[in-house]
């Protein structure tokens, strides 16, 4: 295998780079510059599709949306506002049914919530934030440090426990997570806690042995309460691309995922893949993460999310 010499390499890099800034400027036009008093023709549709692709909606969802727009508006003169609204409508329509706030069932003592997802997606932090919201509502919350693998995962949860006034159930690193969860559930039941939030180690969906470990954890807790976990939430990072499809598909095939949490929406990534996911899996979105602090958990609002994808200012 031969490589180009150094100069040739520098050549393509600088070429790509200059092209890049040009193109990202194009994309950053946002719809204002792009759509002012234009005819909705093929070219414009393509530009719209590009914007949606750049927001991670994926090619097929992006095409689907622009095709829909074309059906109603093709060749008509269309204003900025109209295009924005029409696209946002279509996206909100897809996302509307999946918005679902988390409300613990008061008859369950505890309502068991299991958090899962790939590494670093924000499980532990989301648990901390949710514990904050629940304890603020006067609920008693127990946190189970089911990640016995990652260095200082329990310590991290411990700090969230202190911050939110929740009891943390943890064991030594390397403990079998299934047995830890078993004990945590026993304890939470004994205390009649309102909610038990179970943290698990991050795992990539293609790691069979780790997925089996998660299934085992669930089986073991069902020995105590066969309806547990009452809510199983998969945590997704807003920066994720099309791999989110595989993540959601495999996790929900192997364990019963009830819904999603989308974190890190305070960054530049818009999490547009969620639109495609909603279309395909119809999984409810329970919450979104918008920062690293206790208060930075919000309920998901389809219209707001659609607006943010399209750069529509809140009014």
């Amino acid at each position: 295998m031969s490589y180009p010499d150094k100069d040739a390499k520098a050549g393509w890099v600088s070429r790509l780079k200059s092209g890049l800034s040009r193109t990202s400027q194009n994309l950053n036009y946002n719809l204002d510059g792009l759509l002012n008093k234009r005819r909705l023709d093929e070219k414009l549709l393509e530009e719209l599709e590009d914007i949606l692709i750049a927001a991670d909606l994926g090619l097929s969802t992006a095409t689907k949306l622009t095709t829909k727009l074309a059906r109603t508006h093709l060749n008509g003169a269309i204003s900025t506002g109209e295009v924005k609204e029409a696209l946002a409508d279509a996206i909100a329509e897809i996302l509307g049914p999946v918005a679902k706030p988390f409300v613990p069932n008061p008859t369950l003592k505890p309502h068991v919530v299991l958090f899962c997802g790939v590494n670093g997606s924000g499980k532990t932090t989301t648990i901390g934030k949710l514990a904050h919201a629940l304890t603020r509502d006067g609920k008693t919350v127990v946190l189970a440090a089911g990640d016995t693998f990652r260095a200082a995962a329990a310590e991290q949860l411990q700090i969230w426990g202190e911050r939110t006034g929740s009891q943390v159930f943890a064991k030594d690193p390397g403990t079998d997570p299934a047995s830890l969860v078993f004990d945590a559930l026993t304890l939470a039941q004994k205390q009649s806690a309102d909610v038990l939030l179970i943290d698990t180690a991050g795992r990539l969906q293609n790691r069979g042995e780790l997925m089996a470990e998660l299934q085992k954890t669930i089986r073991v807790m069902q020995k105590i309460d066969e309806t547990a976990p009452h809510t199983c939430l998969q945590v997704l990072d807003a920066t994720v691309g099309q791999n989110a499809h595989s993540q959601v598909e495999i996790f929900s095939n192997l364990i019963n995922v009830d819904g999603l949490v989308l974190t890190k929406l305070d960054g530049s990534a818009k999490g547009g893949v969620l639109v495609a996911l909603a279309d395909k899996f119809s999984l409810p979105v329970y919450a979104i993460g918008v920062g690293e602090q206790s208060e930075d958990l919000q309920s998901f609002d389809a219209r707001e999310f659609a607006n943010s994808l399209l750069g529509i200012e809140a009014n």
Partner: protein
Amino acid sequence: MFDDLSSKFGDIFDRLRGRGALSEKDVAAALREIRVALLEADVSLSVVKQFIDVVREEAVGQAVLRSVTPGQMVVKIVHDQLVKMLGPEDAKINLNASPPVPIMLVGLQGAGKTTTAGKLASHLRNKENKRVLLAGLDVARPAAQEQLLVLGEEVGVDSLQPVFGEQPVGIAKRAMETAKREGFDAVILDTAGRLAIDHELMMEVALVRDTVEPAETLLVADALSGQDAVTTAQAFNDKVGITGIVLTRIDGDSRGGAALSMRAATGCPIKLMGVGEKLDALETFQADRIAGRILGMGDVVGLVEKAAETIDREEAEKTARRALKGQFTLEDLAEQLAQIKKMGDMQGLLSMLPGVGKMKKQIADANIGDKTITHQEAIIMSMTPKERRNPKILNAKRRQRIANGSGTSVQDVNRLLKQHKQMAQMMKKMGKMGKKGLMGAMPPMAGMPGIAGGMPPIKHQPQ
């Protein structure tokens, strides 16, 4: 000039081989599919557009191998271009600074910085025999410093003891002073995760950079990332200035297009890959592997490679057959030269073959460098087809013209002609000796008159 000539040479060659060249239409059709594949692999749209332009330019006019469709050919070209653009593969962690060498890890929240810090510390200690100090600058995330301490202990590397309330710049300073005083070779600085759009935190890490002046500032980034990878990488490069990229979660099943986006957006090499949560799960970058994943068309790439091999073998056998009949023309010689060139670095290649070690000196004497071959090709190129087929007509005037045309000297032309004559004679002789199987009697390698019998130009698989 030589480049120009050799590409012209390539054109003619393709015509000789009787295969078509890729038309603009062929390429456009294939590239539409490639675009879809790249977008599905999460290559950022802006990078996809640029990449497609580069490939289009590269592909139009290239030869299509026999038994391969134009589309398949384009896929192979795209693959090779991806490998080229993702590279280099040999980018090392830069330790060329007076010790202690500061290495800083930066990136988005949860990308894998702290884990990579542990892995890198272990790598530098075990593979480079360095004394490494780990320093945790993350005072934001709960238990971030504990996490790094635990990892340090696990890999048996020293950590800077945290001081409650100390801020990142202060920690960085203390880490460097401690390392200097205690004779460490390198300091790995693990920073807090931060959003590229968080102005304040980006300023903070820039301040740390100014304080320690890292020899390496590595952007740790997730291979699962989507379109935003390009924005993030660009922002970190603009505001902090990075020297390399570490791609984590390569053990996942993502197509990993973010690798290309970030490579393109920053111009920085991808230096390492995280391939698991365990502390030994760190590998050097493999462009070929990542290119294969991004494109997701491994079958097609393999198919074209196989076709190329088959054709090379058939070409070789055809040449051999003709050579044995005493019909070894300058065109055949040119073909051999092209094949030799395709094999890459001759001397390196030859020395890897068993039994060739002894010939090393001869090889060196024969001076078979890429440059020589390019010159020889140029000489043949400057001949008319008639001259190539019948060198006897080459009088002094014609030789001078050829020397001028190829940018060589008449002596060079003479040397090539003599060499060709020797080879042709030798092959005729071998042909008369009887057919001991084609490959046993392959023509000697061009440019190597001393090595009678020679070697087949291309590895041959007996059937």
